[in-house]
Structures are given as structure tokens and as C-alpha cells.
């Protein structure tokens, strides 16, 4: 397969761009998902021209706090499944998507779990074993290597007080971006 390359469109042009590619022969829908970039959320769709075996990736960028995009379901029926998944995992609202039932997650889960702002609660509420320090025998005036250790892969913001009061500390507050 060869690649048509990457196409970036504005959210307003999303539907028109996809419809245009479909009329050019990109009739096979492959996947759609989102990428959390912090302030923005990117949505990407990959479609295929099954005759020429050319693939196309179409990207658009949405504001993370108002992630709304026109649904492709009128053009690609297969997009319905991916849009439902992107909706519950990333919190993208697809306008015109008829079937908005959750695919995989319990409704009680709250925040879309694939957003980077969604705390990994399990790691935030459990004490990280790596934070343990050797207790000294008292004859020394403090451990010179005693600096705060943070678990790798858990952003400090998730260790803050509204997630877990125990792990919270003043030194982390300055790192809180919320």
C-alpha cells in the first residue's frame, strides 16, 4: 500500500474533506481515534482506496475543552464504532452520531479515561513502594540523599490532594496545573 500522506483540515472542513476523499475512491474506512495534546485534542481518521491501495490520514485539531466534531457516520458506516469509542475514551462529541451508547466503559467511570487529565486513580491512591527510605539509626543527622522520589509515569498533578490527600504535599502544589 502507498500512502496519500497526511492531510490537516479545520474542524469546520472535516466532513467536506472526508466526503471529498470518499468520492475520489477512498471508500474503505479503516480507523478513527484521538490524540490528547493537552490544550488540544487531535482526531485522526485513516481511509483506504481499495482499488489503488492508497491510504490517507486526515487530521483535525479541536480545543480540548470543547471537543466537538461532525460525525462521519453518514459517509462511513464503519466510523460509528470508532466514534463511539473516541467519544467515551477521549470525550469527543460527534455531532450527528445516532448511536451514542457507551461501548466498553461503565457510565460511573466519569472522566474519559484516555484524556491525560484523567487521573490514574489506582496509582495515585496506592503508596508507591519506591518512596520508602532507609531509616537511619539516629547517629547521623539526616540522610544526605533524602530527596523526594516520585513514581515514574505518574504525573505529579495526579498525586495532588483532590486525588489523594496522603500523597499531597506543599512542594507538589507548585506543579499543579489545574
Amino acid at each position, binding site marked *: 500500500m502507498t500512502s496519500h500522506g497526511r492531510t490537516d483540515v479545520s474542524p469546520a472542513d472535516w466532513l467536506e474533506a472526508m466526503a471529498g476523499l470518499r468520492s475520489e475512491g477512498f471508500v474503505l474506512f479503516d480507523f478513527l481515534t484521538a490524540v490528547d495534546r493537552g490544550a488540544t485534542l487531535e482526531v485522526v481518521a485513516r481511509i483506504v482506496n481499495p482499488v489503488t491501495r492508497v491510504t490517507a490520514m486526515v487530521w483535525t485539531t479541536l480545543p480540548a475543552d470543547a471537543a466537538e466534531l461532525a460525525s462521519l457516520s453518514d459517509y462511513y458506516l464503519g466510523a460509528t464504532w470508532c466514534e463511539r469509542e473516541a467519544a467515551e475514551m477521549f470525550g469527543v462529541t460527534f455531532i450527528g452520531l445516532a448511536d451514542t451508547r457507551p461501548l466498553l*466503559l461503565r457510565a460511573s467511570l466519569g472522566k474519559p479515561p484516555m484524556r491525560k487529565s484523567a487521573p490514574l486513580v489506582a496509582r495515585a491512591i496506592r503508596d508507591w513502594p519506591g518512596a520508602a527510605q532507609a531509616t537511619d539509626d539516629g547517629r547521623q543527622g539526616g540522610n544526605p540523599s533524602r530527596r523526594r522520589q516520585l513514581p515514574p509515569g505518574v504525573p505529579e498533578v495526579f498525586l495532588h490532594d483532590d486525588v489523594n490527600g496522603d500523597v499531597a504535599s506543599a512542594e507538589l502544589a507548585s506543579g499543579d496545573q489545574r
Partner: protein
Amino acid sequence: MTLHSIPAPERKYRVAGHPDLRVAILDVGLACCALEVGAAITAGLLVPEGSVDTGPATSEVSVLLISGTVTDALAPAVIRAWGALAEPRLAVSFGACANTGGPYWDAPTVTKGIDQLIPISVYIPGCPPRPEALIAGLARLASTDGPCQSERGDESP
């Protein structure tokens, strides 16, 4: 996601090295660990009943073998499978995911240990455990008073 009918476990096996023990396995294979069950059969560690001439078994137990990642969405089906199993029954948790959630212990959708939902008689650690570990765990069943056996309070295999 629902499993509307759970078939009765029909697959009976002899456990290699433990000629007295016959197990009827209902295999709930939910992820990669399930492959090790197949590996145990092809390696001749689990011998299908009747495939070779075996003597009489002195004990038979129905085993719910939970291998793989139990998600909260799928957990009700696992509970139903357990409920459908005929007594005497025991549940075996095979692999890190079934034991505690394993590599997915921090995932919001994964059940942190199937023992929260059904009583487990034997936990087999591993990611995945070797087929030999499955055999060792099943052999442990014969010598253990699992939760259900103590509930029933009758014969011990």
C-alpha cells in the same frame, strides 16, 4: 457483553503425574494466559480422558479455570460461569491478571483480582505461568481444602 448460556464442562482431563486426579475443566480463557492451557494439553501434561488407557480416578473435581484479564464488563459472565458449574467445584486463578489485575492493575476497567467475585482455591502466579505451573496448581487442588469444599464440609478428594 453477556454470555447467555454457559455449557457444562465436558472436557475431562487426567493430570500428568497425578493419576488419581481427574479434572473437568471449564476454561474461561480471557487473554494470553489461555494459550498456556492449550500448551499443557499439547505437551501431554493435561491428558484428555479416554485418549489413553487410564485407571480409575479416585477423585474428580470440576474446575473453573480463569486465565486472563477479567474486565469489569466481563466479570458478570465469569460469575455466571461459576454459578453454572456443578458441585463439587473449585476455582483456579491462573496468571497475574486473574490473580490481581497484574500488569493492568492500574487500569480503570480491569477487575483487581477475580477473588473479589468468586472464591478461589488455588492462585497460580506467572505472566503467563508455565504449563507445568498449571499442573502443579491443579495438583495442589487435590491436597487443599478450597473455600467451596469447606462450605460443603463433606468429602475431601
